[in-house]
């Protein structure tokens, strides 16, 4: 397993929404969860995580609430709102279309042209 890959531009929001959709998380938890569900393949730049979280909350896709962390510290937990769930569905579908289109394009052999 090599060094974790930088995430593609534009996919950060989608990954955050996905991570939070599994269970409510605090910021650091989002980071860990993305690392975990991507099999340590993706690493989020820490500095851009929080602006993204704030932006998603501002857009009403995430809701935030203060709670207790696993080690009994006060932490801000993010949950997915209804709008967030819809957005995640759309983005996932869009992403899948894009991936299969690119894959199809890349798998094309010279005979098929």
């Amino acid at each position, binding site marked *: 397993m090599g060094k974790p890959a930088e995430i593609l531009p534009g996919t950060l929001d989608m990954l955050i929404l996905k991570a939070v959709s599994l269970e409510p998380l*605090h910021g650091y938890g989002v980071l860990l969860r993305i690392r975990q569900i991507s099999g340590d393949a993706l690493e989020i730049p*820490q*500095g851009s995580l929080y*602006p*993204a979280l704030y932006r998603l909350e501002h857009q009403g896709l995430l809701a935030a609430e203060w709670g207790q962390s696993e080690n009994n*510290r006060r932490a801000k937990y993010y949950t997915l709102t209804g709008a967030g769930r819809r957005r995640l569905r759309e983005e996932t579908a869009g992403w899948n279309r894009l991936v299969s289109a690119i894959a199809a394009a890349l798998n094309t052999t010279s005979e098929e042209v």
Partner: protein
Amino acid sequence: MLARIRSLLRALVSRRDFEAGMTEELRFHIEQYTDELVRSGIPPEEARRRARMDFGRVDTVKGDCREARGLMLFDELSREFRYAARLLRKTPGFTTTALLTVALCLGANLTIFAVIDSILLRPLPFPDAQRLVTLYNTYPKAGVERDGSSLTNYYERRGRTPAFSSLSIYRFGTAIVGEPGSTEREQTTHVSPDFFTTLGVGPFMGRGFTEQETTYQTNAVAILTYDYWRQHFNADPHVIGRQIRVDDLPKTVIGVLPPGFHLLSSQAQLYFPLASRPEDRAPRRRHAGGNVIQMIARLKPGATLDRAQSQIDAQNASLETDDPQAKMIADAGFRTIVTPLHADHVAAVRPTLLLLQAGVLVLLLIGTVNLANLLLIRANGRAKEIAVRQALGASRTHLVREVLVETTQITLFGGLIGLAVAAGGIRLLTVLGADRLPLGAQIAFDARLALAALLAAIAMGIALAMPIIWLHFRGSGNALRSETRSATTGRAAQTLKQGFVVAQIALAFVLLAGAGLLGLSLKRAMAIYPGFEADHVLTGQVSMIGKKYPAASAGLAFTDRLVDELDRQPGVLSAGVVNNVPFSGRSGKSAATVKGYVRRPGEPLLGHYSYGVGGDYFRAMGFHLRAGRFLKAADSRRPERVCVVDEDFARHYWPHTSPLGHQLFQGSEPGPDTEAFTVVGVVDSIKQAGLTDETAQGAVYYPYIYRPESDIFVVTRTSIPLESLRLTLQRVVRQVDPELSANDIQSMGDRIADSLVSRRSPALLAGLFCGIALLLTGIGTYGVLSYAVAQRGREIGVRMALGAQPSQIRTQFLTLALRLFIGGTALGSVGDWLTGKAMQSVLFHVPALSIFALGCAAGIMALISLVACLLPANRAARISPMQALAEQ
């Protein structure tokens, strides 16, 4: 979108919580990360360093988070706001002038706007109020512009005019309410059963009036207003069915109106059914309106005013065919006008209010131009700084925003003070009689006004920023160059400033001349002779309550005793009674038929003022006798009927002969000879409706017994101060009948003065606006010339070093001032002419372009400009060459 605004607002409102939360969240993250690194075997010290490094600069992240929340713009704005505030604090003189200018100009505008808003703009407080119309009969050729509607009209029209969903009538009145011993005079309204349906607002408790309650046998019911219910019944929830005494008759309360219910300007507290007898509704009473009963109708959805008008016209035409008086009615130009209720109610004050609003808008324009000039001068001082910043890469948006923040800051604070000025202004207007305007009682300082102030302040701030932005960006290199040489400022900027001064002078000139026209009109109106000697006359109103004075003879007995008693009081020269004093606000007319007079074909029957007089009315009021004799108290008791006519009446019917000895009848038809009145005297024509009323209406004075009314005016002429007679009048009325009292006691002088309030108050206000405008113009002219002198200090120094005389320098600046003044007045004269034409409807005997008013205005303007430019010109002449050159 809504979610975003809410999230931004939450962050803005609890900004401290937002910041603290963000700090805590980020710290938590870094600590968790450090812990993880420590767990993976890195020494704590090293782990902390690594964690901070991997996270990046906390401040940058925080900034990004704030931006994500949309807070950046606000942070920057508040920074610029503080910066602008600091700059303003450094120049207290400028700031005070600017704030006061904005406060006065906006305050004056808000004051007048408050009046316009509540009187002209705000819809009447009824559902779909724009569909409410009023109908009235008019007989223009008989001199009767407005005669209300008759009962017959109502019963003939309701349900038969398809354009109306509902039609009703009402009549204002007063009544004595309460048990004997604790009675009060209340304003009342008698209404037809469908009145509340027409308005769309009915009792919130109990019920409205029914058709059965419109006869004199069944009308013993009343509906109370909310206020009356609260004040007199302690808001008793079981008030329905309780009894009250009205004019000594019992009435049952059947309903209570919702809070705030009022019809137009009426303050009526009690509503009664409008009862009548069948004969009052008969066709021959169709034209007996007398402007007592008014009609309101509601247009059906989709029905237009034009359709309603044509339906009413058609109905009138078909009804008149079987009217024996049809010819006479047609000759009088009879028509029934259908017109929007609100617009009709405020039609009389509309031109004056719009004129005043135009006046204050001009004032606002002067203030804005003045402020723009001051700001330009100020901005000039910073032109170099701005140019350098631009050269160093400051963004245009940033600079524009900076200017906007500065100007709106001034206008917003000024607007705030302006609101206080408006609060005071509304008070002042009340003193000047604004609350007596139609709907004037509704004038209020409210949220709408505050919102208007906010919008106006922001608009003014943006307008003020424009010239400065223009100055900064008209070729950025330009400013840098001209400022470094610091010889002369940009020619364009100077021209703009001088142009502003010219505009200011022109506007102030227009305002001044407009106020002059109003003042001149007032003066001309005040100089009119009312037809009698109004000094030393005290008048008061007495209402004889129906039950005790059913017959005219009882009324006569009362008035005779009253006059006798008054005559005995010390200081009373003569006393009399009349059913309607001049300037009482009532000016109803009725017909008289001169025996033997044949109207020319097409000549309508005229309406005349008709008075019933008792005692020594003519001497008490100060009439001049032109022929014959006055009426005497005894004329009411003598079998032969006599009357006195005025000169207008005499001139109309007997242009070539003396009217004495001729006979006339009351009403529109000749009667039997026994009912003829013989003319025994001719008196001067008087002004009944107001000093500026110029129609020769004609008047007939009958002895009281032939024109008895229960509402009379007592008139006393005295040699002692009027104030001391006031109590005597009260006492004598009580002495003659303890149950009666004298109301509305006023001297004739006051009544006349009151009748001019619609001319005096606008003239006073216009004068006030002019004062402010002149002050502003003075400041503006002075500011620009001072600046010109300061800018050209070096040039002047050089010229003086080369031998120029101080007087030459002074002349140069005076010439500049003269040019500005001439430009301004020339432009202003054109404006004056247009203003005068627009004002024609409110002027009285004054031409649109009054040379006198123009001359005065020009003189005052010249004086102000001269003073404003003499000071800087003198300073220029005293510049010492050495000093001027050394300073640069």
